């Protein structure tokens, strides 16, 4: 039960995240095949594999986030590459100078990351994108008793947000081409966002 996110814990998180993405690669790509082009799992798997290879032993959370962000930008491609890349790069900026992050620090960082994703991708909540998982995840961090509890609530909110994309018509990304045909399918990017936050809650739990 950690009350601070430090480099070893964040590294453990990424290891869990990479393993989950790898294991769920086919599932994520299937979700994407239904309303997109079927590569979301392969894209993230390629990216997180590269992240694990490049990570090394970063000096602080900011350095870790920056490496993750730049590696994702350089290896994922597609829409999710620049978006997840931006998430981590902006988290790096927000975490600059801190050796560890407590609940408030993590909240600040994640909020900055998500703001970066919104700035880059211009998606609003309800557009059926990763934003639908990330925005409630940030909101759920607001008033948390402990870090593990905060992360658990945040992960749960992301999961609910992802599931709630099913009835939506997409307004951003490839799924927006489908119009009504996107209804009934969960958004792959929202699902992978929920996976990442679940891995963090587990790592810190």
């Amino acid at each position, binding site marked *: 039960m950690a009350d601070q996110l430090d480099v070893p814990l964040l590294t453990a998180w990424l290891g869990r995240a990479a393993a989950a993405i790898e294991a769920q690669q086919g599932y994520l790509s299937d979700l994407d095949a239904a309303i997109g082009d079927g590569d979301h799992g392969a894209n993230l798997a390629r990216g997180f594999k590269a992240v694990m290879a490049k990570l090394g032993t970063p000096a602080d959370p900011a350095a870790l986030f920056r490496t993750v962000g730049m590696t994702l930008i350089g290896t994922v491609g597609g829409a999710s590459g620049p978006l997840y890349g931006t998430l981590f790069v902006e988290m790096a900026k927000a975490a600059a100078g801190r050796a560890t992050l407590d609940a408030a620090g993590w909240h600040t960082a994640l909020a900055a990351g998500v703001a970066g994703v919104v700035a880059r991708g211009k998606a609003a909540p309800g557009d059926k994108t990763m934003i639908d998982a990330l925005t409630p995840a940030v909101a759920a961090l607001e008033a948390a008793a402990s870090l593990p509890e905060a992360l658990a609530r945040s992960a749960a909110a992301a999961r609910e947000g992802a599931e709630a994309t099913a009835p939506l018509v997409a307004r951003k990304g490839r799924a927006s*081409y489908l119009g009504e045909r996107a209804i009934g399918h969960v958004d792959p990017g929202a699902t992978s966002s929920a996976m990442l936050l679940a891995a963090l809650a587990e790592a810190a739990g």
Partner: protein
Amino acid sequence: MKKFINAPENVVAEALAGMAAAHPDLIRVHTDPDFITRADAPVRGKVALLSGGGSGHEPMHGGFVGRGMLDAACPGAVFTSPTPDQMLAATRAVDGGAGVLHIVKNYTGDVLNFEMAADLAKEEGLDVAAVVIDDDVAVQDSLYTAGRRGVGATILAEKICGGAAEAGADLASVAALCREVNGAARSMGVALSPCTVPHAGKPSFTLGEGEMEYGIGIHGEPGRKRIPIEPADRVAEMLMEPILADLPFRQGDKVLLFVNGLGGTPLVELYILYRKAAEIARSHGLTVARSLVGPYMTSLEMAGTSITLLRLTDDMIRHWDAPVVTPALRWGA
């Protein structure tokens, strides 16, 4: 999945190696990050043209690198947009001092990655302009979508702008011409069968024996609607109608008619479609002044076609006719 590949993760690298071996006189293949440049890049004093996108659409874009067309192409993973580092490295490699035009197909991934690359290039002091191609009338261009996709007009813009760049036009003029081509072109596609991305190992969707996907994209994503299969002449009508309805093509306009194969459709069928499409164009009072027929923008082995109609100016005709020497498009030299 039945493909001539060794492993899904090596498809792009091995195909690039094959291209390098087959066309040493025309192109150079750079690896890590991956991009293709014309053999004589950078060309001093010429505006450089760069495009890129997911692999699996060959010959687009790598097959269009060479004199009179693209200076560089950045291939992503199959159906996945390439990354900013590729675009940045390619931009550096082909900049001949007159600036670099990024020709970007309108997909969120391509747009975001190219945006990042352009930002980085500008930070380095490079002169970069970008034009986003969005000619696919299958997608409604509204606030509620990612906007029209970039399809067949991309190739026409690459050729025409390539001609202008070769003729000495400056970056602003080439970019303006690119926007003009995009604004004067409309496309629509239909598929009879899906394709299989090597990594996925199974078809991206399934279609019944009597069905086709109308308003298909080029990434194996589903189309606008699934409808019963129709005879070729009716298909040509169904593709031409929304194209003609969207842009005020006017009696007397000269047009370029591009009947594209998505990969698995034989040339003989493309010519059957071309025949009817040309007839429809003529019956609207248009003069089909130039044409292109063949599998130039593919979706792996997908059976299907797309039609692009471009309203031509005399300038566009001149730059279309100008010499081009690339692996996939070649004339005049």
